[in-house]
């Protein structure tokens, strides 16, 4: 286990990891038929876009891409301080009968994914829903597991795993900061 702030994925490794995730998604789905990628706000959206780009390069198909903001479905709204900012939800196609892949940056407690599943159900009845995450850091509080994982990191509950993407943060990187780091 790392003890000081350390790089989990460099920019190059980030790119390779996303490519492999894209391959696994196509493989699991046996192609791109009925596939829809749905990124979770915020950084899940950019990772979903990257995956879609790789799929398009490999298969020549532009997979429908959506964005989901789960704020209004959070289970802790009654206890958190000022109301969290609500982001955009855009689903470009009807989800009925589709194979939806939820894409997020970090999987931790599983509560975000619980909220995402509830929200997706309000848009229709997909044929299947699976989960792809760049980082699985453990620490689940709900019975939720990923289907496609970029990298596993064993992080204690109070440590931070920071995912940065070029579109938002200026560079691609995943860094690990133990609990006492500022």
């Amino acid at each position, binding site marked *: 286990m790392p003890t000081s702030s350390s790089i989990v994925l460099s920019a190059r490794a980030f790119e390779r990891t996303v490519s492999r995730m894209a391959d696994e998604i196509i493989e699991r789905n046996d192609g791109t038929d009925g596939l829809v990628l749905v990124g979770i706000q915020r950084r899940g959206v950019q990772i979903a876009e990257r995956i879609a780009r790789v799929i398009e390069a490999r298969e020549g198909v532009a997979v429908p891409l959506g964005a989901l903001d789960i704020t*209004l479905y959070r289970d802790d709204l009654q206890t958190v301080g*000022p*109301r969290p900012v609500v*982001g*955009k939800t855009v689903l470009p196609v009807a989800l009925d009968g589709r194979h939806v892949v939820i894409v997020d940056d970090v999987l931790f407690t599983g509560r975000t994914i619980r909220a995402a599943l509830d929200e997706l159900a*309000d*848009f229709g009845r997909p044929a299947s829903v699976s989960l792809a995450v760049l980082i699985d850091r453990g620490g689940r509080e709900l019975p939720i597991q990923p289907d496609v994982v970029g990298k596993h990191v064993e992080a204690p509950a109070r440590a931070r795993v920071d995912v940065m993407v070029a579109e938002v943060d200026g560079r691609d990187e995943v860094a690990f900061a133990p609990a006492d780091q500022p």
Partner: protein
Amino acid sequence: MTSPLGKDLLGLEHLTAGQINLVLDTATPLKEISERVIKKVPTLRGATIVNLFFEASTRTRISFEFAEKRMSADTVNVAVAGSSVSKGETLVDTARNLEAMKIDMVVIRHPASGAALFLAERIESNVINAGDGTHEHPTQGLLDLLTLRDHFGSIAGLKVCICGDVLHSRVARSNIWGLMKLGAHVAVCGPRSLLPNAIGEMGVTIFDRIEQAIEWADALNILRLQLERMEAGYIPSLREYNRVFGVTRERLDRAPRDVLILHPGPMNRGVEIDSDVADGAHSVILDQVTNGVAVRMAVLYLLSGNTPELAEAAKGVA
């Protein structure tokens, strides 16, 4: 840093530009919910909201009710007729009785200016002003701001003229405060008998002729002539009002640019606004109605769970 809203929404006069933008920024993504197959999010599940209407209202009450239901709150409507209010119960007693039934929010429409503040100071629940006398109608002001921002991209520098019965209009007051805080240039236009004496002190331009207003403005917000008040002799006749102050196609055709048309409703077609203007290409009157639901959902979301203590803390931030 965004500043939270506090416990109540009573008017736009005491909000900061940051707080107003927070409502508009929150309302924008919420519009999508009304386009879904299942038009509902679970955010306010378990919250109880009372719509306390001491004055007739169709649009505002329905808009609040849709907003509440789309956020999954449980709602009760209390109208004056048929309630204990008609038996002489005071406003505070009515509210305290409702609060004793463990409610979370009150939306109040009342003919007396200041009624919402009076209530907010006396109960723990969040209070939303849905129009108090001639004072303010903040959610209408916010939905007008959102409609303008959607169309022009930004409010700052925009020239907006509020036309008609400004004297009796809480919509006008909320609009003026909100527009000025976001950096718009604001004007009013109407017969002097329908403009408040001190209107100039709010920092707005005054046009006596509608032609001048149309030539100057990017957008007109045309107020409803409150026919029920017009018997008191503010204007000679409705026909004359339409002839001098009516917004007509002919007048708009002479404008140097396309003027966006807003109206808070309900419209008196052929009085303050002609039908071909209300239904014309530059009218955003129905967009206002759509935005009203989103703005009210945003306000419910931002106020929900805000206790009096949090509201005090919010003042420090603002």
